[in-house]
């Protein structure tokens, strides 16, 4: 079992359990989705009981929550924030705008597919998703963390060139920080 690459070591199990129960969220409040975060975190839905907690800066955060549509201009910042986060890190795409562009499907400056630019671990459907859906999304994330399948960051590292090419396509002036961690 220990030599099996697909299964987790005991240390990983403990660590993943800790990660699962301690999700520090950097809510990147881009669109209308930002307004769904306060009810999720406060008394009504109380995400903190699941260990979900807001983080102030990307350095401290585990999860990047992209709440809504991203213009190309914002995407640049989101990429930067994502790259500043420390491993292990996860991305939650929030609302249909991040999935397929949503109502901005024909905008000249709004991206449609977040996963072309960042490795999204969990999408939360809806326009907007209600806090219940958000909590469900967190639950899903916890699930895949526990299973060790939340390997978005690894995917990003492995396919860095592809991601970078996509990013560069719409943001020619993207400063290529040497992302090598």
């Amino acid at each position, binding site marked *: 079992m220990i030599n099996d690459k697909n299964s987790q070591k005991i240390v990983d199990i403990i660590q993943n359990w800790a990660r699962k129960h301690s999700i520090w969220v950097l809510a990147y409040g881009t669109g209308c989705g930002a307004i769904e975060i306060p009810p999720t975190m406060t008394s009504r839905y109380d995400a903190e009981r699941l260990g979900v907690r807001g983080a102030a800066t990307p350095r401290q955060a585990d999860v990047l929550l992209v709440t809504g549509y991203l213009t190309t*201009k914002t995407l640049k910042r989101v990429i930067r924030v994502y790259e500043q986060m420390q491993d292990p890190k996860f991305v939650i795409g929030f609302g249909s705008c991040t999935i397929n*562009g949503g109502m901005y499907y024909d*905008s*000249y400056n709004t991206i449609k*597919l977040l996963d072309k630019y960042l490795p999204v671990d969990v999408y939360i459907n809806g326009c907007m998703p209600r806090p219940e859906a958000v909590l469900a999304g967190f639950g899903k994330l916890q699930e895949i963390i526990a299973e060790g399948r939340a390997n978005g960051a690894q995917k990003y590292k492995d396919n860095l060139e592809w991601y970078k090419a996509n990013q560069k396509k719409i*943001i020619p002036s993207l400063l290529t920080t040497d992302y090598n961690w």
Partner: protein
Amino acid sequence: MKDIKAKLTEKIKASFDTVSEKDYNGNRLDFHVDVKIIPQILTFLKVNLGYIHLSHISCVDWLEEGEFEIIYILWSPVEKLKVFVRTRINREKPVLPNIDMIWRQANTYEREMREMFGIEIEGLEGAEEFLLEDWQEMPPMRRDFQTEEYAEKTFWSREGREDAIDVREEIIKRSREEIPDFAKKYSR
């Protein structure tokens, strides 16, 4: 209000002869002027007549007529009157005089016009990029800019959306039909 408008028209006409005006109900008065006297008439309005507030600068793309219409909306807190100063410029080579020395805030509007319509403002200072970063296509607010095509080309669509039925026309039609009477006058 009528008196005010009449007086204003009289004063403007006394100073600028190539001006034609159009009156609207309420507190609004339009002037159509030539692009050359834009700075002069705005200065005159601001300094001599008390239209100290520039509410907005607007631009309309008259694609069919091959012109841009620029609208300066001024407001006098004393006379409580909005003055629209309209001018038209050629769409092929759009050049506009700079007025940010009259109102500092005009700079923002002008930069946006420059970026979104590609209108050249003479002597405008400020960074080239304002709202759009790394924009290489035709200015996106021009009416001949094909937005959907561009979005499709640039941002990819998620697969599985191709067979979606375009229901927009249907929705519009249905909404027209179902519009209540009291709302009909507001709709197209």
